[in-house]
């Protein structure tokens, strides 16, 4: 079936395709239409799920934790302040090894109140032990929800998939929607390895002392490492079954490019157009889209960026006191390669609080990075007013 859906509706329909069994969610702009659509899908019988209408995002995540611990497939969605309120329980879900799937609509943090997109909400949760996908289109949102369950339930870690506020959440696109039966061939019903069972009672989450805590964390790291391969296979299998795939990272016109724009989210779409334009004008420029941020696809990023002249990382976020977060990630990945293959890496801060990242903005970055002096680790803020 093909329908014209917003990004938010695509997220909801993704959960419907995956037959989420328990939804636990709380409204926040611009996520609201995800849970409204889910409420409709449940009410009209298209999705056989329990929908716990909680009183806060903190409880939304606690609801996913409880239902998942009981052995059900769960879904939730949030944004910005709501995601921040969940923070404690994001750790809980990950350390509890519960494969919860959540959509986060990227929205800037307050104050002042902003409902517009940037990545600081999701990136502030980077270190909670969740897998993180950044999506570029509504189709990718729906497909990534389905893939997320496949990966999460294989490695027993939760997955957050991210879509830009308004640029995706409230923008309509044509989206292919597989049926629940088709989806079930790719994603079989959830069979938890361990869950609350009165016939086989276990205690979960009790006190651990210094002698075993590190081992629990190490096992998460091992699972995260495994998740890279699992996620790649999940994407390959998805492509085989549905004819669409995205990779963990996606190179665009990079074969012979000296200069690389690193992007994520909807900025990647704009960058594709810009790269086409710049190519016509004779610039040796390509684009690398980062779809999966955690686990970080080190090897793939190294392989692609190795030997380039310069890399410009576009960060729609700011770690104040350090710089753009994707820039740090890329620099970290590129440190351990031979010096003669290591590109200079430049960080650009763009589009905070939903400010438009137009083709002109991206073109100005592509031109800037070619003529800028030696990279010194400074961040360049684009389009700042005096």
């Amino acid at each position, binding site marked *: 079936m093909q329908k014209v859906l917003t990004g938010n509706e695509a997220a909801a329909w993704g959960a419907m395709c995956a037959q989420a069994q328990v939804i636990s969610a709380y409204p926040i702009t611009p996520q609201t239409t995800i849970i409204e659509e889910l409420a409709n899908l449940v009410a009209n019988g298209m999705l056989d799920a329990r929908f716990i209408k909680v009183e806060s995002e903190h409880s939304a995540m606690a609801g996913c934790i409880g239902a998942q611990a009981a*052995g059900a497939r769960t879904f939730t969605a949030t944004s910005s302040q709501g995601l921040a309120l969940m923070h404690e329980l994001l750790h809980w879900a990950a350390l509890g090894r519960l494969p919860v799937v959540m959509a986060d609509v990227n929205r800037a943090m307050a104050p002042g109140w902003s409902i517009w997109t940037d990545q600081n909400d999701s990136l502030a949760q980077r270190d909670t032990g969740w897998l993180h996908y950044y999506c570029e289109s509504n189709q990718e949102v729906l497909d990534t929800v389905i893939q997320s369950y496949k990966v999460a339930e294989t490695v027993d870690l939760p997955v957050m998939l991210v879509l830009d506020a308004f640029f995706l959440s409230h923008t309509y696109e044509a989206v292919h929607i597989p049926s629940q039966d088709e989806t079930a061939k790719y994603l079989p019903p959830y069979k938890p390895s361990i869950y609350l069972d*009165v016939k086989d009672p276990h*205690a979960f989450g009790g*006190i651990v002392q210094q002698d075993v805590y590190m081992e629990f964390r190490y096992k998460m790291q091992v699972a995260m490492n495994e998740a890279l391969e699992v996620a790649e296979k999940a994407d390959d299998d998805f492509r085989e079954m549905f004819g669409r795939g995205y990779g963990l990272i996606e190179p665009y016109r990079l074969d012979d490019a000296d200069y690389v724009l690193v992007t994520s989210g909807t900025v990647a779409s704009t960058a594709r157009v810009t790269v086409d334009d710049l190519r016509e004008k004779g610039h040796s420029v390509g684009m690398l889209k980062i779809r999966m941020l955690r686990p970080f696809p080190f090897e793939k990023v190294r392989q692609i960026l190795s030997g380039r002249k310069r890399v410009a990382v576009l960060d729609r976020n700011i770690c104040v006191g350090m710089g753009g977060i994707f820039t740090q990630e890329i620099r970290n990945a590129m440190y351990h390669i031979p010096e003669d293959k290591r590109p200079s890496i430049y960080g650009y801060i763009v589009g905070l609080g939903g400010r438009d990242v137009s083709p002109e903005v991206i073109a100005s970055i592509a031109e800037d990075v070619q003529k800028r002096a030696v990279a010194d680790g400074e961040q360049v803020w684009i389009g700042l007013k005096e």
Partner: protein
Amino acid sequence: MEALSYLKHFKEVAEHEIMHSGHVACPGCGAAIAMRLALKTLGRDTMLIIPACCWAVIDGPFPYSACSVPVYQTAFETASITAGAVRAGLDATGKKGINVVAWAGDGGTFDIGFGQLSACAERNDNIIYVCYDNEAYMNTGIQRSSATPWGAWTSTTPGSDYKKERKKNLLEIMAAHRIPYAASTTVAYPDDLVLKFRKAMSIEGFRLIHIFSPCPPGHKALEKNSILEARYAVESRVFPLYEVEDGTKYTLSMDPPTRPVADYLDLQGRFRHLNKKERSFIQQAVDEEWTRLMHRMRIDEAL
């Protein structure tokens, strides 16, 4: 009113030990006794959701558990919603006939988990919520909570800065949500506790059981006096035993012989600093609350 038996119904459930020795509760811990009695009544088809509280420790360190039912430990403020969601998960996967029990202390109930508790009650989530109330944050070292009574010493209400605020009336607040069942009980009356858990099990929807739970270190009381303290709490009408069905139907479980509040206070070092005037203030407040409760019992009849 029929006299309350102590051990008749307790004997009916005495064979089933579901909580075992090897737990790490302090000697004389009311919360350990409460769990033992509750699990005997609830049986093995029970799941416990335990937030941060003494019981998060009492159950034993990984990989041990003192309870031979599933135990899920969760964040401090989330016992109610996690239990509600466990129920949703069981419903969604077609599992029936299981008691889903949130088992939280007074901090997790009266304070940090209060919003979640109210929301769960409003949704009428199908769980039994148990608050074992030792009237302070005992697990972290006796800090005051909104369940700490007026006049009590705690480590954050020291010296002349003893607690000057009254205890929240949990049962009244929960009754105001019109939940199907709310009841108070304590470890000094095993039959009362057993009967209230039995009744809770027979009802669907949000059920709350408030258990007064003596804490020897926190109340600065002798370990051997825990049961006596709980009994005096009831007899002095500091902690009346009653039930509220559907938020309106009040039933007194026991009309106790009147015992002076002083007998209750004298068992505990946490009230030792109070002078005569302050002690009589407590007596007066207890008498007023009792009268108010008696009036409330009759409101429904009047309607």
